[in-house]
């Protein structure tokens, strides 16, 4: 392979190109994260806000049916073996499609644990129903 000695000027130009590309990649990453966060927020919003009217279930043409097994519940890609239910879950399984985002883990602890109450009447109860 032909190897040419580099001048200070060409080295500086090279560094500038590398910096430019790095910046572009970083900007793309930030934009991508923002887009995914926006999609996640949109999904959460629609799930938390029922519509004003409830449309009836509408059957779709057979061509519109999702592929068997295909699903877009983020982070729920079918696995070959069921995970151990007793094992700690820190995040859902990674999705294979870049268009699918992992939702925040749903089963999260509260911001603060309950505390004992003495001398106050309960407002509600929680028991088997």
């Amino acid at each position, binding site marked *: 392979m032909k190897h040419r000695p580099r001048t200070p000027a060409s080295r500086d130009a090279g560094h500038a190109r590398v910096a430019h590309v790095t910046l572009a990649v970083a900007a793309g990453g930030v934009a991508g994260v923002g887009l995914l966060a926006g999609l996640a927020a949109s*999904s959460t919003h*629609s*799930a*938390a*806000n*029922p*519509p004003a009217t*409830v*449309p*009836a*279930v*509408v*059957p*779709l043409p*057979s061509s519109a*049916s*999702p592929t*068997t*097994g295909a*699903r*877009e*519940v*983020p*982070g*729920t890609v*079918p696995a070959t073996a*069921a*995970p151990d*239910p*007793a*094992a700690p*879950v820190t995040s*859902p*399984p990674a999705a294979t499609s870049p268009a699918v985002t992992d*939702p925040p*883990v*749903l*089963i*999260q*602890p*509260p*911001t*603060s*644990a*309950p*505390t*004992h*109450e*003495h*001398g*106050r*009447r*309960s*407002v*509600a*109860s*929680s*028991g*088997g*129903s």
Partner: protein
Amino acid sequence: MTEEPAPVASAAFTALGTGVVLAVTDAAALPEARGMLEVHLARVDEACSRFRDDSELVTLNRSGGGAFEVSETLAGALGAALQVAAETAGLVDPTIGRAIRLLGYDRDFARLPQDGPPHPRVLTVAGWRAVGFDAARRRVTVPCGVELDLGATAKAWCADGAAQAIASATGVGTLVSLGGDVAVAGHGPDGGWPIRICDRHDEPEASGGPVVAVEAGGLATSSTTRRRWRRGGEVLHHIVDPAQGRPARSCWRTVTAAAATCVAANAASTAAILLDRAAPGWLGARGLPARLVDQEGAVTTTAGWPHEVVAV
């Protein structure tokens, strides 16, 4: 000692086949809050009921494998149910609908015959991965022979959504309890919302459980002591083990969990019943404060749940 009433206004009524409690920190906001809650309850009943012939869920369960576009309400409730199934590795699974129907729980519980002939055995539950769900397009495919039951999560999901919506619209602290699945939102009373923990939601004083204060998120209790019936002389209950297609056999009779949301608390308490002796470790690993009562009444707590002295 005289118990001081909490400085809140509340209303109690019945919906979704269970007791409802709505409490707000400003009495002037109660009428508007109740109106909003009733709208949420009506939408969830129309979309998610397994006992209404005209509900979306019943239509979906009878779809014979076709793809359907569903309402935002059903899509939201189903999305939550499927995510809970994923995060509990299928312990809390919405595809138990056929199993629980064949076990005899096929109508509103108040109208269910308490005794009857033996039930047919459901050998397998399809599992949540069998359900096709395109959240963005709200398209759902339920394979032929599979029936969904959102009973484990829909009430909790409704409580979360209603509490958040009411607190946002009225600006007051809000508590919504649907059959003991409790969600709170906004700025609550000083010291948090006082909630009594019990085996039976409809008899809170009789069970003599502790009162705890919750400042945010949700609290839920799952119990095998309620919604019980007999078929062929066998006592059955509503918490079905998807792996067995029949009521769970657990060392715990009642589990209460606190979490960031009511759906999460409900998922944790139901999963704990199914996990049997592994439950304290599973809850502790996730930092979920919980109170577990075994069949003899002994109490175990996890992850910061306040300790208590209980007569056994």
